[in-house]
């Protein structure tokens, strides 16, 4: 298993090289010229030219790529042409916010989705089934930004029980810690007040974001549970007197988890790449906003950097998912 993990990690390298090439090509072949904008309005042509040189954009594409990759190897992810801040630094400030949001959303989705899916499968075509499916489908069917706005109207404007936006009250100092997750950092610091504040801020965006994975996990769970429930061994287990709860939560659950795991893995990357809308509505200072801003202003380096980070997280998630397959299914061999 260690060998397998190592081999997978080694295989990541060619993947990442391919990835940088594709993303680089995409980013650089876009029309439009950010240099004129970066130089500022009223910049004279020679200033524009000097900015162009400063960022090496006057060189040929392969040369630019080579410069980028050699920089990358040394930990230099390039510099934003607009803010001139190092991309890596920026990503590191935005990433924890996004990760915290995604993690919270996934947590909600998993913790609610799996039991609801099980319940829907057990009471198939019954009231519980219809109810959970309708609610879940409702969650999927709502555009996320619209859902976000509605949630804000409801919980903030009318009920006034949750904060409107952001990660932490503006005039207070957020908890600091090694993870950059306000929730975890405040737990680590034993700061329960900060924790409750952070959780309040997290609640709405995480919920808005969790609905679609929640629904998918739930339906996946429902489908695979139904399938597992029809397997012969369930009949055997029942015939030999094992209680229904035990069959469901021990024997069926583990079988049904495999396909659900794949979905969970895929959703992590999907959420990471799709936080923009929720982040916009809730002013969540995360990677999605950073990336969107960069794309709209054709700021190459951040776009490439964000893509790389997300791709790496995706690849690692998939590796973890694959390793977890083995936990849930002994027939999977790490070869």
């Amino acid at each position: 298993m260690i060998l397998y993990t190592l081999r997978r990690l080694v295989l990541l390298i060619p993947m990442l090289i391919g990835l940088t090439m594709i993303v680089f090509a995409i980013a650089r072949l876009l029309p439009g010229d950010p240099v004129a904008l970066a130089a500022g309005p009223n910049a004279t042509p020679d200033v524009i030219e000097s900015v162009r040189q400063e960022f090496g954009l006057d060189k040929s594409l392969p040369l630019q790529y080579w410069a980028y990759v050699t920089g990358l190897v040394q930990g230099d992810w390039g510099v934003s042409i607009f803010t001139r801040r190092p991309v890596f630094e920026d990503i590191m400030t935005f990433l924890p916010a996004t990760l915290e949001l995604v993690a919270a959303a996934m947590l909600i989705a998993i913790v609610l989705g799996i039991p609801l899916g099980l319940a829907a499968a057990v009471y198939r075509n019954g009231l519980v089934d219809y109810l959970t499916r309708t609610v879940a489908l409702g969650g999927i069917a709502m555009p996320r930004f619209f859902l976000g706005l509605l949630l804000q109207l409801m919980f903030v404007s009318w009920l006034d029980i949750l904060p409107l936006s952001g990660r932490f009250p503006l005039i207070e100092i957020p908890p600091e810690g090694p993870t950059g997750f306000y929730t975890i950092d405040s737990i680590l610091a034993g700061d329960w007040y900060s924790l409750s504040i952070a959780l309040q801020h997290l609640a709405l965006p995480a919920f808005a974001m969790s609905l679609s994975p929640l629904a998918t996990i739930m339906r996946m769970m429902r489908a695979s549970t139904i399938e597992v429930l029809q397997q012969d061994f369930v009949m055997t287990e029942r015939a030999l007197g094992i209680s229904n709860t035990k069959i469901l939560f021990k024997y069926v659950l583990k079988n049904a988890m495999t396909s659900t795991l794949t979905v969970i893995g895929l959703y992590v990357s999907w959420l990471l790449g799709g936080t923009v809308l929720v982040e916009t509505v809730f002013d969540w200072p995360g990677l999605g906003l950073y990336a969107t801003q960069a794309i709209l202003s054709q700021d190459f380096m951040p776009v490439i950097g964000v893509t790389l980070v997300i791709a790496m997280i995706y690849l690692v998630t998939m590796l973890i998912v694959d390793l977890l397959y083995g936990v849930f299914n002994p027939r999977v061999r790490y070869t």
Partner: protein
Amino acid sequence: AGRKILIMASSVDIPNFDPHVATGYAPAMLFRNTYDALVRVVGTPPEVKPGLAVSWTVSEDQKHYEFKLDPTAKFQDGSPVTAESVVYSFKRIVKLKRGPSWMMAGIVDADSVKAVDAQTVAFDLKAPFAPFLQVLPWMFIVNQAVVEANIGGDDGQAYLMKNTAGSGPFKMGRVAPGNLYEFIRVKDDWHQGGGNLEGAIWKIVREASTERMMLQRKEANIALELYAEDMAALKDNPAVVSVIEPEYRTFSIKMNTAKGPLADKNLRKAISYAFNYQSMLDAAGPAELMVGPLPTGIFGHDPSLTVYRHDMEKAKEYLAKSEYKDGGIKLSVMHATGYENQRRWSLLLLEALKSLNIELDIRPATWPDTVAAAQSPDTMPSFMCLFQTANYADPDNVAFAAYHSSRNGQWQNPVYKNEEVDKLIEAARIEIDQTKRAELYKKFQELVIDDAPDIFGVLEKRKLGFGANVKNFVFTPVAANAIELLPLSLD
């Protein structure tokens, strides 16, 4: 809650703190509060007030200026503000050729500024320049010692990008790019008067509706980018004060006068007549229609000019005179992605063109695309939607930036070129006699209107929302949302 911290909600980031490099109103807000300039502008119409300089003299020919610095003025590190630093700052602006340098291009160069003594600075202009004092508030003075200590290979650009070295009443606190910027009132500050603010936060908020809700919930004290619909919603809220003021910000639809069908003046006129200005005004929210190329109320503007208004008969008449008698062509318009009003006006343009049997392709474009498209007549679409904000309260700002042919290729004036117009702008620029100057601008306006290079649109009023507890705000129509914090107080 006892702390007097003012929160401003805005959608615009502050990517660069260097006052000689960055532009835009969000950086301008930062500069206005962390740096000082020789003078300030306040009120409507904008009046020049002392800043670092307590007094100044102007020579007869308006080419020689002398400023006396406030002896109490000191930088945030405690060192006094000297004439040396002022000279250093101006030299840096001229050298870098970025940020505000264009405003005094050809007027001030490296050897125009001299320190007469520690407290006196003298300027020798290359040519008389009427709006000189209006330009000065944007020339911020940096602390020479600090910059020199962090000079690097780029005149301290790398350092000043993330640090401030000014004499302003506020210094930077927390900085979270893309999220918030905190300003902290400097202790033992030399500025006189001022409100009770202990600090302020510039919070980046993407959605206007969120800005509004923050204001309603008192999570923000000032909302800077509100739509007309937001203002309507806030109207009856006792906790919110709406500020709706005219300012020198024009919206016009530029036409590609150099290439394609719109090079035909008659067609341009036909379109100018076909456009429904009233609908534009309706859709714009609080605004007034432009009368000619200059913003209403600015020096030299002539409110009695005859301009294009919706008139289908005339439109048909001019269309008949043009090469495209029956329309039947397809034009394109570019507007900024995500600007709702620009999208609406593009739709109005579509409607107008349809009445002339002309098709229109509406292309939302990102700002870099717009800037890039403006670089040549070949890439410029038939129409381009543009807002322009006056940086200084002088007609020269708009006239030079938007209609002088030397600016071709810049987004403010991608293609328009008329030698007569150029001459008028240049003459007005160095004219000292105010009546003569007004005369020149009147001519200029008439000429441009006749040329119809733009569809002169609206002057949108500045729409700001204030919490009722914010006191002492005075509206200034230049860079109106670059709020000066010093005078403000919170109840």
